[in-house]
């Protein structure tokens, strides 16, 4: 093989290697972890409890975060986040909770710029 051809093949191989490396780079987990929530994961609440609270391990940009409520019928309602009184907690209110299984879908922007998301499942019962 001519030296120029060898050099070219070497460059191609190294390019494939770097591409493989870039494709394998770990997916971001995000920095924000939910450390406490109201209601708790799998919790049961009455239909009069309409305040949700999500507490994280890091400071959150509440203005650029989002909370959605997935109702028992599958409809999704974006819930307005209340003004933050704590740098790592988000609160929101939801009205007209009927009995059934709900999911709170949260997506938060941590102050360091990382986006994390998750879900909390809870049940509403008639008490």
């Amino acid at each position, binding site marked *: 093989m001519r030296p120029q051809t060898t050099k070219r093949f*070497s460059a191609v191989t190294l390019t494939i290697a770097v591409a493989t*490396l870039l494709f394998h*780079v770990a997916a971001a987990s995000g920095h924000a972890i939910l450390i406490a929530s109201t209601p708790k994961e799998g919790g049961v609440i009455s239909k009069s409890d309409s305040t949700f609270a999500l507490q994280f391990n890091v400071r959150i940009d509440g203005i650029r975060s989002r909370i959605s409520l997935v109702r028992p019928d599958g409809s999704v309602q974006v819930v307005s986040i209340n003004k933050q009184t704590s740098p790592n907690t988000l609160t929101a209110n939801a009205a007209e909770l009927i009995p059934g299984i709900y999911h709170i879908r949260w997506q938060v922007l941590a102050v360091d710029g990382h986006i994390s998301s998750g879900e909390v499942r809870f049940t509403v019962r008639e008490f």
Partner: protein
Amino acid sequence: MVQLLAIISFASVIMRAVTLCLQSLVIGGLVFAVCVGSCDRSSEKVEQQIRRLIVGSASSLAFATVVLTAANILVLMVSADLKFSEAIGANFVLTGGLCIAACLAVVAIVKSVRIWQFRTAALIPAVLILITSVMSSHAASRINHGALLALFTAIHQGATATWIGGLPYLWIALKRARDLETARELSRKFSNLAVASVAVLAAGGLGLGVAYIGSWQGFYGTTYGTMAAAKIVLFVCLLALGALNFSMVRGMQREDATVVNLRRFVEAEIGLGVVVILTAASLTSQPPAVDQLAVRVNSADIIERLAPRWPRLKSPDQQELNYVIAGRQQSSVPSLAKDSLVQPDAQLADPPDYLADREWSEYNHHWAGLVMLVLGFLALASNTGKAPWARNWPIMFLVLAVFLFFRADPEVWPLGPTSFWASLLAPEVFQHRLTVALIVAFGIFEWKVRTGRTDSTYAALVFPAVSVIGGAVLLTHSHAITDVKEQLLAEFNHLPLAILGVVAGVSRWLELRIPSEDRARPILSWVWPVCFVLIGVILLNYREI
């Protein structure tokens, strides 16, 4: 749109790794110019190349920051349903803007002022770049002790950039040094700078480790902790190389000293340093160990997983694999997508236990381990000079590539129903195919070198370069395992493999690049085959059950 967001999120992680490397080059270059560069005032060539590298790095960093910031704005707008005017108020946009401004300032300064005229004020944009990096680190979002953690992060990253980021500039300066006296002075000054940087880096790293890991169980029981442990091991390897360079710099006081060896070891330090920075980038994407309280692995799990057992040399039946069982169940539910590589398990009547899939994976790893063990012993035999036939050991890489091509993804061609081209749309399959292509190229190159079919320097360097890159791949990649505990236990196999791959690559690189009469050469020639033998042993003990 969901797939586009996933691609953008993935790309932003890559960009984060790239920006950390470029940041180190920019800061390292400016510090080098201020503290060391004045030694060689008369060399136009040296100055030109250093300026070019600093300007190129700063321009690339600015571009990468634009791309990263734009990608994150897009993700935020789409996923949180925000307007552009709302999204650009985020902290990361301000941080990105500051970084870009600092990079442009670096370009302007370097283009208008001679390197040896740089004063401390030239470091101001470097400090700004460092501040923007700290603002996007864990420290920026911590609730308690944020300022202290920011300080530790700044000194840790700054010292890393000064040392590792400065090495390429040292290499350039040594290559073009006009005489031995100048080379000595450059090396001596950089050596002093590097020693101070290592001390500061270690102090900052210790502070961050205590704050973010918190306990021994955090160290071995979380992904963050094990990645940090891998980074520490690589740092020790870097220190060893640095110590060798340090003694070489002292040795340069003799009249007959040359700089060739020093440059070669600097090359190895650069390669290892880049891997450490990539590991750090991967760490910044993980939540700290102190926050990962819910899912941790305990020492009993680790001991049980790593306890030696006889390897699995018999494959499970392909018909027992989950994709086959799921396919049979799905054929009775027409609404589910056909020919999909992703099976919606939740919709199946019987949830899969994945036992056969894990047995299949163990079998693959164990046979790969056998191949690597044979390869390593053949390479050792070849080194003795008494077994000329053993020089064909790189052919074992082709054996490994064929094995992986068939076995890595049983649900796709040639073993499964999904066609070759359709299978490339699945990211994990694409990664495996890319890896197989790499192993084939790698094996062919090294075989040609070993059998004297090519005397090209470039061909010989492919093997160590790919070995280091392969190690970096293992250090930074994520597993497609949903169980977090299983993911972490898999890391206990992959991280030692990664470190051995990097050490093998560095030792082979040095063996090829240092003069043949150097006393270190015979030692280095035994290091990388031993690494391959150890890789084989670790693979043979790989467990998922």
